[in-house]
């Protein structure tokens, strides 16, 4: 009985062409008929009508509600009302986005582009930290116009889709719409003209994608600097083409290093310690990251090897990989060997320990290779230093 009364009531409202509810926090006004309207606040329920602007129904209206519901006019009104409501419901889909933000996390929920980047494996938190200027264009990217052509370009240069995330985290400027694919191709062509093989270029792409957004004339100058490396007393170290190429491939961050710092490191080796030019060239070819160390750190490490461990410059220049390990670690290992009396680094002598065995690797590997006991003995020694 109550349901029929509700239906009749609804129809009577439709006939009056009432405006639908404009706000969704609709005030629950009771009708004069005192029908028990079941209040359901969830929007899954059909729209609730407000009784504003309504003439009070009188008992006489009830008789007019016996018409069938399938009137065309009524249905049209209903569908018009439905469309207006649909448009208003679209606003529900949008999430509130801040106008200005430091992080991309605020925009991820509403941006399909960022979601696809995350699915590829791009680390948005590192980009926020290291490339703050890149946040601007990343939010405004368009998937089909910006991202897809660049991904295709990278795939053409032998980059798998699994590596796409890592390359974008290392250099999000690849996706900048201002950096066009023509510029990238120009850079790759320049490298090919300098006889870098396509395998080498592909490895550069994966490990050091920053080179794509560098300018070609600047790279030309930097490569020229490294080919004829100036040293302290107006001498130069010459690298052949193959040697230079292998240098750059093994240590690509030489391309964006501070050239003055590199020069000062070479000056330190030549002037302070007295390495000869062939020795320096040998050291740089074995371990090019040596040039990127801080000057003070390089000095301290050289001192450790030359004065504490009493290596000759010739031996150190041939075992230049020892500069790779942390200074404190090599120092403690040397003191441990000294306390056992096993610190023999000359090849002719008995009980010779090669520098690479001593310095390179973890502490467990060091104990195994040099046969100085277990790791517990080493830790017991560490607790006396």
């Amino acid at each position: 009985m109550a349901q029929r009364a509700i239906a009749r009531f609804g129809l009577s409202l439709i006939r009056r062409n009432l405006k639908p509810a404009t706000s969704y926090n609709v005030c629950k006004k009771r009708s004069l008929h005192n029908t028990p309207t079941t209040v359901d606040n969830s929007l899954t329920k059909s729209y609730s009508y407000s009784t504003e602007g309504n003439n009070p129904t009188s008992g006489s209206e009830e008789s007019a509600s016996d018409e069938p519901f399938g009137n065309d006019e009524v249905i049209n009104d209903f569908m018009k009302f439905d469309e207006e409501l649909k448009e208003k419901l679209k606003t529900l889909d949008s999430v509130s986005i801040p106008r200005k933000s430091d992080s991309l996390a605020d925009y991820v929920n509403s941006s399909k582009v960022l979601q696809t980047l995350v699915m590829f494996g791009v680390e948005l938190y590192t980009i926020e930290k290291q490339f703050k200027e890149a946040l601007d264009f990343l939010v405004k990217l368009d998937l089909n116009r910006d991202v897809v052509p660049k991904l295709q370009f990278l795939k053409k240069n032998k980059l798998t889709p699994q590596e796409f995330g890592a390359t974008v985290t290392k250099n999000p400027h690849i996706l900048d719409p201002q950096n066009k694919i023509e510029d990238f191709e120009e850079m790759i062509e320049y490298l090919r003209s300098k006889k870098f093989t396509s395998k080498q270029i592909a490895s550069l792409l994966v490990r050091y994608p920053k080179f794509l957004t560098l300018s070609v004339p600047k790279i030309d100058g930097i490569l020229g600097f490294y080919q004829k490396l100036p040293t302290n007393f107006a001498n130069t170290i010459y690298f052949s083409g193959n040697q230079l190429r292998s240098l750059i491939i093994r240590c690509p961050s030489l391309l964006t290093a501070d050239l003055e710092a590199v020069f000062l490191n070479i000056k330190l080796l030549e002037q302070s310690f007295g390495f000869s030019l062939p020795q320096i060239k040998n050291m740089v070819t074995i371990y090019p990251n040596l040039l990127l160390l801080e000057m003070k750190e390089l000095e301290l490490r050289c001192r450790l090897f030359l004065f504490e461990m009493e290596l000759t410059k010739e031996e150190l220049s041939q075992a230049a990989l020892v500069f790779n390990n942390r200074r404190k670690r090599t120092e403690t290992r040397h003191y441990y060997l000294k306390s056992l009396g096993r610190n023999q680094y000359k090849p002719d002598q008995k009980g010779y320990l090669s520098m690479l065995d001593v310095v390179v690797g973890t502490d467990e590997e060091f104990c195994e290779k040099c046969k100085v006991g277990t790791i517990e003995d080493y830790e017991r020694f560490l607790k006396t230093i």
Partner: protein
Amino acid sequence: MSLPVTYAPKAFRWLNGIFAVYKPADVPHYPFVSSIVDKLVLDINSLEQRPQKKRVVFKRQSEIEDSDHPVDESNQSHVGQLENTLKPVCVPDWFDHPLVQGPRFRHSDFELLCGTTLDVKACGVLVVGLKDLGSDLIKRFDRAKLPRKYLAHGHLGLASLSATGETKIVERSTWQHVTADKIARILMHIQGTHRKASIRQTGVDLSTQKAYELASEGLLKPQQYCGPIILDLKLVEFKPPKFGIEVTCIDEACSDIRRLIHEIGLILKTNAICTYVQRQQDGPFLYDDPNTLLLRQINVQRVLESMTYFRHVLTPGMLKRHTHFRNETLVLPDPVSKAPTQTLLTAASDTQDNGVTTDDDTLLEELSETSVGG
């Protein structure tokens, strides 16, 4: 060996307490402490993390995918099944994705508090407290002033500006007249004066029964800072010109140990510099305990194990606030200033015991005689 913790938030909740770490020499204090936290952060981020959060979104019936969970299952029966009806649905929150937020735990989540710090040049046990419970225990541990044991090596014949081998050497002197016997006697003398001075500084009337009881328990210590108090001095090795001593003391910093070695040199009519200071014991925390961790041994599992071990070692009585002096009227002697030039040793020799002569004065005379001759 307890079962390893694999769930990171659980490990984070448990990482709350006090433990000990071995600090090597030539490492500044703050970088060392922050590197402990860095290691813990790295390790805890490698464990299993909490699941990604979800958010409620209203979707049209046609757009709902299989992966979305409905919010209210009971409501489904009388909800309209039209094409455009909206349904609330649980969807993974991209905001909380690990690649968007980064690692779940950061350096700033851990609060590491140290009690007494060690110098750059000193090595040894460093007691350290993590987060709330740890900070609370560290503060109580400091207030308890448990005795500490140091091992210090000295080198006779040199005097430098800072009593170490690092600064400029200012004086050289002969040391051949020094024997182990002389050093031992001096150490006994210093130990005796310190113990007497500390008892005097408490201000308790020494003729009472209570004073005897407290002294027998070892609680007769001054309540305020009176400078370092040496409880025990021992000569451990003597290979001239190098010597090593073991110091048990209260309220002492590493610089006081170095000054002590310098003063020993002066009393012996030579000079001495300090080449090595190691804190071997800090209350119940020992340096050769497998639960005091080296930096290379720090990870979540071992830290948790050492915390549980030391919780049993630190018996409740050790950190208790002692109330035996609360209602006592203490008669304190003249306060000892905090100036670094004055130690209890010199203070003790200044204050004169009325009419009490000791053998200490004659001892000093003896030593001076022999050195002049030799």
